[in-house]
């Protein structure tokens, strides 16, 4: 399984994601410059965290027009696995692969911490190595992770079990329904504010993020 990690100007978790794929899966992974348009050789695409285009105007708003995004949209349509982490999640919402929007944290501060999450749905390509209801710890680091969508969208997300992760006790950003990560209707595009690549070995404080990567690999192998 070949992974691509897109690098936008201002991405800063791209190498962290590369290292996570290498360290957890030992799978081939390369960074892809935002101007590259050919993603055919890859089976999965990671949109990493950071501040693409400085987060100017709105988070993700400028990056979504990068040439690589057309190919990401196409890859998603083909059913390839796409995961957007933090800034990547924001880009996926802006480009319309995921519903809703990410707004400034309700307390208006940047927040770096390791909250507890609940895995709400373990029947997806990204979570199949977890148990539904499992409590896990994955760090967050964002100023704009306050997920917003209207009532109807929320209802759809709930009904279709598209909410994969919720903040467990304390909501660190004011996110609607405590949402930390959602998946698209088709089940192959995940956006999440927490950073699984920051929780892959014990010395990091938690290794709970590794199963996202192992789930993706197992899902691909079983296809």
């Amino acid at each position, binding site marked *: 399984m070949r992974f691509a990690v897109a690098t936008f*100007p*201002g991405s*800063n*978790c791209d190498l*962290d994601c590369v*290292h*996570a794929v290498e360290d957890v899966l030992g799978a081939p992974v390369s960074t892809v410059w935002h101007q590259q348009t050919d993603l055919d050789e890859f089976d999965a695409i990671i949109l990493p*965290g*950071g*501040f693409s*285009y*400085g*987060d*100017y105007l709105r988070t993700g708003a400028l990056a979504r027009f990068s040439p690589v995004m057309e190919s990401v949209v196409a890859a998603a349509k083909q059913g390839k696995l796409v995961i957007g982490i933090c800034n990547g999640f924001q880009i996926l919402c802006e480009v319309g692969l995921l519903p809703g929007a990410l707004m400034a944290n309700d307390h208006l*501060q*940047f*927040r*770096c*911490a390791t909250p507890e999450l609940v895995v709400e749905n373990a029947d997806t390509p990204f979570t199949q190595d977890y148990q539904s209801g499992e409590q896990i710890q994955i*760090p967050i*680091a964002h*100023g704009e992770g306050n997920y917003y969508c209207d009532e109807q969208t929320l209802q759809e997300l709930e009904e279709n079990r598209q909410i994969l992760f919720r903040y467990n006790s304390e909501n660190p950003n004011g996110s609607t329904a405590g949402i930390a990560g959602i998946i698209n209707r088709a089940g192959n595009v995940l956006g999440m504010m927490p*950073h699984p*690549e*920051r929780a*892959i070995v014990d*010395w*990091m*404080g938690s290794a709970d993020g590794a199963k996202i990567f192992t789930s993706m690999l197992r899902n691909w192998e079983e296809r």
Partner: protein
Amino acid sequence: MVYSLPTEPSPEQVREQSLYREMGLADDEYEQIIGHLGRLPNWTEVGVYSVMWSEHCSYKNSKPLLRKFPTEGPRVLQGPGEGAGVIDIGDGQAVVFKIESHNHPSAVEPFQGAATGVGGIIRDVFSMGARPVALLNSLRFGSLDNNRVKYLFEHVVAGIAHYGNCIGIPTVGGEVVFDQSYEGNPLVNAMCVGLLSHDQLQKGIASGVGNLVVYVGASTGRDGIHGATFASVELSEESEEKRSAVQVGDPFMEKLLLEACMEMVEQELLVGIQDMGAAGLTCSSAEMAAKGTCGMELNLDRVPQRETNMSPYEIMLSESQERMLLVIEEQNLARIEAICKKWGLQSAVIGQVTKGDRYQVYQKGECVADIPVMTLVDDAPIYHREEKIPAYYTEMKEINDTDQLEGHNPESLFEQLIQSPNLASKRWVYQQYDHMVGTSTAVLPGSDAAVVVVRGTDKALAMSTDGNSRYVYLNPEQGGRIAVAEAARNVVCAGAEPLGVTDCLNFGSPENPDIYWQLSKAIDGMSAACHTLKTPIVGGNVSLYNESGDQAIYPTPVVGMVGLIEQRAHITTQTWKGAGEQIYLLGETLAELGGSELQYVVTGQVSGQPPVLDLEKEKSLQTGLLAMIRQGIVTAAHDLAEGGIALALAESCMDSGLGAEITLSSPHSHVTALFSESQSRVLVSVKKSDMEKLEQLAAKYQIPCTRIGEVIEQEKLLIEVNGEEVIGRSIPDIKQLWEGAIPCKMKASLTN
């Protein structure tokens, strides 16, 4: 003859009306310039000299004192003088680090002032060819009961967070202190740590006649003109007028600049590289030429400009951020341009290296400055200021009023201390910093020192910033020693061998003999400690004139220490690991409450003498502790600092989910036993089975070593002194007070 713009004061007017004074030049300095040039300088030239001879660039007031610092050691690859110091960590790798102040800009525009301070120090590190891996800071504010202070604190922290988070370098540690003396003059010091392989070490040097001078990065605007001199004057109503001295930072641009420069370094395309920081284009180009003892010619028409009709003076002195100056061989130009293009950066060839010693600047075909380059750097004036023992020092020394601290209920003192903003949890601060980006942070903020692993090796770096200015005020020499010793101790507690120091000397006006004495003595103390602990000073920064009204800040040397952890298995934190583990105190508790946090909290003052630091004892403590850690027997180690043993014990409990049961026996009072701030002390915990080993090692290194209790399952802190129970509190309760103190203060109103 050099050209003068008709819109600017003529050379004669500059002289007749003493206009050079507005730029911070003294009369005799101006006369020296005339001597160097053999004619009257024009407006631009006066500007160039004024920034090059400012304290910030020339250290004219501090140089004679700075020479006292030990700067050499077997591992030092680059000492003071370049963008940052460089120390070998083995395997062909080196650590690069530097601290710098941004006090004055932060006082008037806290968010951008602090943000651009971070941006500047990052450029200093990557201009050495190193990849920045961590940021730290050291902050000082007035009392949080003041609304203006709250505003400054909130915005400084947000500004630091903004820059570091956006560029993607983790902010892993630092310190914040609140004290009345900083009310009108907050301190914002930022430190950056980077890694490089030896063969990638770059220097800020121009050489090779005909080589090109290339400008990369953001356009030049009229912002920040005279920032370097601004940094060296007292804050007054007048600085309100120098408003444009504050710039807006663009961390996004700096990220692009960083990545582009890293590519240039990897491809070995550079002869020299230097950040355009304080004094902008002037300082970077003149210093590079002076270092290479060559001339330089600059054409200002080619400098990318954000505003129209900028004068040579404005272009030369602008401190617009996120700019780099390169010297390259012409054959590499195309590759440099390609890299810039990839990263969306503009670049421009703005000049070349010339034979001889002239620093010549052209605009629109006219020569607008023509200066012998060495006079800008080597001939900067140096002042040996007068020093005098201040009256307050002699008075304070005699006062011994720590008796007033006795007789209070120890538990209520403990409760007060734990909520003092100086000792309370700084989570409110560091949770705003991305301290994990880069996935290398092994010890997060909240322990004695932060630890960042070195990917691809089993090594890690420990780092800390420290400085207690009350101690320095009461006794600059002791205070200077303590600053270095504490920083080193913090790093040792994390399992590291201290490697070296970068320091930031934040003081008042050196023209005041009392203050010059403080500076001189503090440097003596720091030097002695660096000498004994074998931690050379490889870089630093001086920030003088930190005064408001006629009130100077406490003398505040800040020490940034970096240490090397040989194996990740040695990484140690302050948190208890398991019930039943035995708690030891290494070191000795004396009756030392002068300048303590307890004294300040109870009396609102500091007086007397600070703790005494015996360097030999400190050295054996650190060597012994490191040996214990390397033998794998230490499960937790925590430095004793402000608040004494009581606070240290509480901190080790906080995140452990465990408690501690402690029995102290002391020849002193309860209050002294609990809150004395005696130096050279560390708490450690070991498994029962390792007690003997620990005691043997302590004996071997001649460290006083007392078993004082054990870690318990119950989340309680129970302390008995001489058979009397003095503290008995539940950890969740005290944790709530400890973590709530700063957020609670910050809820109330803010105003700029």
